């Protein structure tokens, strides 16, 4: 198992290096840094001198290594637009995105798994059919449309919840979070639902189909023959076996909740890193874009790593005495 973890971390590092390279190359290929710095009036010799001074003539590998050392030092560059260190800007914005992603993740997993189990066990009830029909909307409507619709319904017409913004924040564990204040929490509900709805329905449909599959398995039949209660069969045996494939997808979905918060944050003007990224694009603020890419890449790799390790906690066949590798399906 240790060997697996080490190998898996090694793989993660390789992926991170590749992501880092893409971030790095954004500086090289998107726009001309010399022109940005010197303006159009500069002479060729000015350009050559600056390029030499900035080390732009060195081999790519050398430049990339220099970039990596800089990033690992926590220096992500200076935002072209704000003139502030990118690391600082992102750190300021990150809590907003993380708490939003956290709430939608909890919603998506909680509601998704609950409804998934319910619809798997009660296959043809009225409630099941209703849930399944509504969930179709969740998977098929684009996020921004759902967001706009929710604003129209709950903010404009019913006036229950704020239409945009983050509301007041409170200090929690050294971070400024909206979720700890009532007003902030209220402002979070609509964006969180918007952001998590797709994942929620996806998880629900996945749990449902996986669990129905498991409920047809021989060991469930044998569990019935042993006289176990339906409750024990559904929750002690079927659910645990359902979770192995569900965890993979859910992990990836959590990553994409953070990554694709861009749209939701734009719709609700939620001051997180997604909104930061969108604004950075319109100003070609390459250091911010590049840092965002790096951040999202790192989060994805990190979540994948955790998901892989979770398998060990759930599936004994992957343990020290079982076969290795995660692809068993």
């Amino acid at each position, binding site marked *: 198992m240790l060997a697996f973890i080490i190998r898996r971390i090694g793989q993660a590092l390789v992926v991170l290096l590749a992501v880092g390279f893409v971030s790095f190359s954004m500086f090289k290929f998107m726009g001309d840094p010399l022109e940005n710095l010197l303006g159009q009036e500069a002479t060729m010799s000015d350009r050559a001198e600056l390029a030499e001074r900035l080390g732009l003539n060195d081999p790519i590998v050398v430049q990339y290594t220099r970039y990596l050392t800089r990033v690992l030092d926590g220096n992500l560059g200076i935002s072209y637009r704000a003139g502030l260190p990118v690391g600082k800007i992102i750190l300021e914005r990150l809590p907003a995105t993380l708490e939003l992603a956290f709430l939608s993740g909890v919603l998506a997993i909680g509601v998704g798994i609950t409804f998934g189990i319910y619809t798997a066990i009660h296959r043809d009830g009225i409630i099941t059919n209703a849930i399944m029909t509504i969930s179709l909307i969740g998977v098929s409507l684009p996020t921004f449309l759902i967001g706009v619709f929710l604003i129209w319904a709950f903010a404009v017409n019913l006036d229950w919840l704020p239409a945009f913004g983050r509301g007041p924040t409170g200090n929690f564990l050294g971070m400024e979070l909206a979720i700890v204040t009532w007003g902030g929490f209220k402002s979070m509900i609509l964006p969180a639902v918007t952001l998590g709805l797709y994942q929620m329905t996806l998880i629900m449909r996945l749990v449902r189909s996986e669990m129905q599959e498991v409920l047809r398995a*021989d*060991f469930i039949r*044998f569990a019935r023959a*042993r006289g*176990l*209660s339906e409750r024990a069969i559904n929750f002690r045996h079927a659910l645990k*076996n359902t979770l192995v494939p569900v965890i993979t997808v859910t992990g990836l979905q959590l990553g994409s909740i953070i990554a694709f918060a861009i749209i939701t944050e734009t719709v609700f003007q939620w001051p997180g890193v997604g909104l930061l990224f969108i604004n950075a694009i319109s100003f070609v603020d390459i250091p911010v874009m590049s840092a965002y890419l790096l951040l999202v890449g790192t989060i994805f790799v990190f979540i994948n790593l955790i998901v892989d390790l979770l398998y060990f906690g759930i599936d004994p066949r992957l343990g020290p005495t*079982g076969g290795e590798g995660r692809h068993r399906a």
Partner: protein
Amino acid sequence: MLSTRNCDNAVSVSPILTVSDLIVEFPTRKGILRPVDRVGFEIDPGEILGIVGESGAGKSMCGSAIVGLIDRPGRIGGGEISLSGQRIDNLSNDRMRRIRGKKIGMVFQDPLRSLDPLKTVGDQIVETIRTHLPVSAAEARRRAVAALEEVGIPAAANRIDAWPHQFSGGMCQRVVIALALAAEPALIIADEPTTALDVSVQAQIMALLKRLCRGRGTAVMLITHDMGVIAETTDRVAVLYAGRLAEIGPTRDVLSNPSHPYTIGLMTSTPKPTGGIERLSQISGAMPSLRDIPKGCAFSPRCGRAFAPCYRNIPVLEPAARTEVACWLYDEEYAKDAANLEGTGHD
């Protein structure tokens, strides 16, 4: 080895399981199919009854019906099932659940897939014991170790915390047997318990099952298509064909002196352990699909001795030489006709 039924003067024991006129139905778009059609038999306490038949003859469906585990949309369409004199075919799901595992244990074909892969074997035995018996967790665990020892798992006290994937097929089936016997049921329904196992392990598992059940006086309904297993293990045997009971009787008699033409065909197509090299015959044709069971006797189109009534009416079980047979050849009324027909050189 003698079943109580073999001795005429035996005190009549009330059977542990009585199945009479059992019908299992599956409604489909093209009408109702009957994988089990008016099957009746009894199993005495401690007796081992074999159920043989080809794939699709309704053997497993019989077993599922008895424990109330027919997959939907299938249902029991008629007949009665009684366990120790109490009717169980009309019980609620919850009451039936208390009988499953407690009074009727089951063993399935594929041991590797019968166990939950994500629970240790100990957990699974303990939960079965605690479902049916009011014992503490510690006591249940102690019993689980004892149960594993009894089915011949070496170092049971250590192996109890092992996962199913750490066991071989044979060892898994031992665990499954331990599970089936965990709550000391009066009847075990073993559905092809050795089919998925290596040939070398099959005999061990059958011997184990037989030894344990004999030791506890547990009755066994052994569903198989393996004539060797039938010959070695069972007291009586019931032959199913296309969902109907063709012949039932003491194993020795059914094997050596079968009366039903289908059983006869079955026997001559099975190599005898004692016999030398001889050519095996085969029954021509195939068992009809449930969709087009012929009118009259289901075996009639393949039967070399079929005559008029066979194509008209479904035969009922009647005593023949030493067994009970559902065949018009043994019906007194028709017997003469049949004899005449055969006498005139009917093939």
